[in-house]
């Protein structure tokens, strides 16, 4: 699958936006500006973008606790997201959801999700709806290397096969679930094989390489769109931060984090690749960087200035329609 320049620029912009969103969120959390538990996606940008660049229209994604990257990649409004992290009523979820529940259902984002493996069953339902309606939409769920051990994830995979629905299971191996290595938590030696045992093909990608992810995801999505049932994508790529902001990361090996940032940075990789082939110039990429930085700055300023929710907002949005007598 070769990408034209517009596509390359867009992909790079998306990855860079995620990176800067996360790094800025990190800084603001350290400054005490953002409340709650926040899990950053820095380092894994190529996964989200490599997958979501194939999606449009009524295609859906469902994400995880580490959801900012997926949501941005699928097109969530960055300012709305930043305002949401700030807990503002101008946030994408009016400040009611926060980092772990960023969502934009009408635009195909069925939400970040605070429950590990809460998403895959829901995604199968979205895929089922596509099949019932006779569209060729797909439904993508993101899961971590830890979440694949949750029963709901297995159930979703089997059900998707049974119903032959266009569900894409993207498994992101960032080597850890919280403080525990995949080497421990996934009992078998071959997670790809275990997953394929459920009855669908899994396409493996190097998560540091946007192009590799994009290709693997393309195959999986094509498979599903063509009516062949579910498919999987398996990406490997470490996260650059702790599990959550504040994690002391005692589980890291010596120099592990430096190595990750040094040698496994998907943005660096992308830049080297496209400048190497001559498809894009450093200047062009720098220009995108500058625009992204400006966007993030603007998003932060706007979030800071945005209106705060009040007690009057507390009890709305629980139900769509309230019976006369209320609860």
């Amino acid at each position: 699958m070769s990408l034209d320049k517009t596509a390359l620029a867009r992909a790079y912009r998306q990855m860079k936006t995620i990176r800067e969103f996360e790094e800025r969120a990190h800084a603001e959390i350290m400054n005490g500006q953002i409340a709650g538990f926040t899990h950053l996606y820095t380092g894994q940008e190529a996964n989200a973008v490599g997958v979501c660049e194939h999606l449009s229209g009524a295609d859906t994604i469902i994400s995880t606790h580490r959801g900012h990257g997926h949501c941005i990649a699928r097109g969530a409004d960055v300012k709305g997201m930043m305002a949401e992290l700030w807990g503002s009523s101008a946030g994408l979820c009016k400040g009611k959801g926060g980092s772990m529940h960023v969502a934009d259902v009408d635009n195909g984002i069925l939400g970040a999700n605070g429950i590990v493996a809460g998403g895959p069953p829901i995604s199968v339902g979205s895929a089922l709806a596509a099949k019932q309606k006779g569209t060729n939409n797909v439904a993508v769920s993101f899961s971590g290397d830890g979440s694949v051990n949750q029963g709901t994830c297995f159930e979703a995979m089997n059900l998707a096969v049974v119903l032959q629905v266009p569900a894409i299971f993207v498994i992101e191996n960032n080597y850890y679930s919280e403080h525990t290595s995949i080497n421990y938590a996934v009992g078998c030696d071959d997670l790809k094989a275990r997953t394929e045992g459920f009855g669908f093909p899994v396409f493996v990608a190097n998560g540091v390489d946007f192009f590799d992810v994009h290709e693997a995801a393309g195959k999986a999505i094509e498979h599903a769109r063509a009516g062949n049932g579910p498919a999987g994508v398996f990406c490997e790529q470490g996260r650059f931060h702790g599990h959550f902001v504040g994690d002391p990361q005692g589980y890291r090996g010596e120099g592990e984090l430096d190595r990750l940032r040094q040698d496994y940075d998907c943005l660096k990789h992308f830049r080297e690749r496209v400048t190497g082939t001559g498809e894009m110039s450093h200047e062009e990429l720098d220009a995108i960087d500058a625009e992204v930085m400006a966007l993030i700055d603007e998003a932060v300023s706007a979030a800071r200035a945005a209106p705060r929710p009040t007690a009057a907002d507390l009890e709305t949005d629980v139900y769509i329609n309230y019976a006369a007598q209320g609860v």
Partner: protein
Amino acid sequence: MPQKTMRDAINEALHQEMAADERVFVIGEDVAGGNGSDGTVGCAGGVFGVTAGLYDKFGPLRCVDTPISESAIVGAAAGAALSGMRPVAEIMFADFIGVCMDQIFNQMAKFRYMFGGKSRCPAVIRFASGAGFSAAAQHSQSMYQIMTAVPGLKVVVPSNAYDAKGLLLTAIRDDDPVLFFEPKALYQEACEVPDEPYTIPFGEAAMPREGDDVTVVAFGQMVGRAAAAIDGLEDQGITCDLIDPRTTSPLDADTILESVKATGRLVVVDESPPRCGLTADIAAMAADRAFHSLKAPIKQVCAPHTPVPFSPELEAAYVPSVQKIQAAILEVMR
């Protein structure tokens, strides 16, 4: 008007709404039955026969059999609902809620709030609930009392076939997630049920008996017993309001409070155990909002704080009887 059992009334509602709205579909274990076998696909229609005929009429994409994977079933319903469909999932026995609880209470119940009011999840989940079949501890629980505690869910407990049909049609057309508990002891009970579709609004109690002395609130299977209890006391000159809330969330607080204010006495009846249940919920509401009208202690008639036993004798002692309800009414009349 034709007499129909609660099973048939629910089945009819499903047939009618699936015919009227192609976004409606059913999904669950053996809602068709026979898939993959050498026999007849569609042979089951659910273990209680409630979805009978839907497979033949609407085919595999709208009568969707699943593996035994309740979390995936509820999740699939939730996801389809977010994506514009109107699923009616069946979880067979209400007791099985334990294996899909997260999808119900952390996912579908909370989407709208977490997402700042920007989603709709019009999914219905049906359950067969309650005791009465010697089905023992894991197949006899009512569970609606626990789910009533969860903000974001609407919870329906019909007490007769007529209400079941009208409430199910409302449930399917409602844009919020609805849990629909069918007291399985009532599946075979019949009453007059119109052939045409009709709806019964949520949050409006029924009052199958009216009287002056005591307000009796009862849920699901207990409504019939409470009515029998009340009827049996008539010749002692005691008359009661009997209130069947029909939906426990939203709750028709007004009707209950108005009645309590008139009678000054309240007995609440449910087949669930006593702690943090619906009997306490209603009693506590009255002890606040109708306090000044109360003439007697508020009595709760419910199951004991035990799992549901198997042995028929024990189960009979477990579920509130007509006699126990009468005893409570007489006690508040003393």
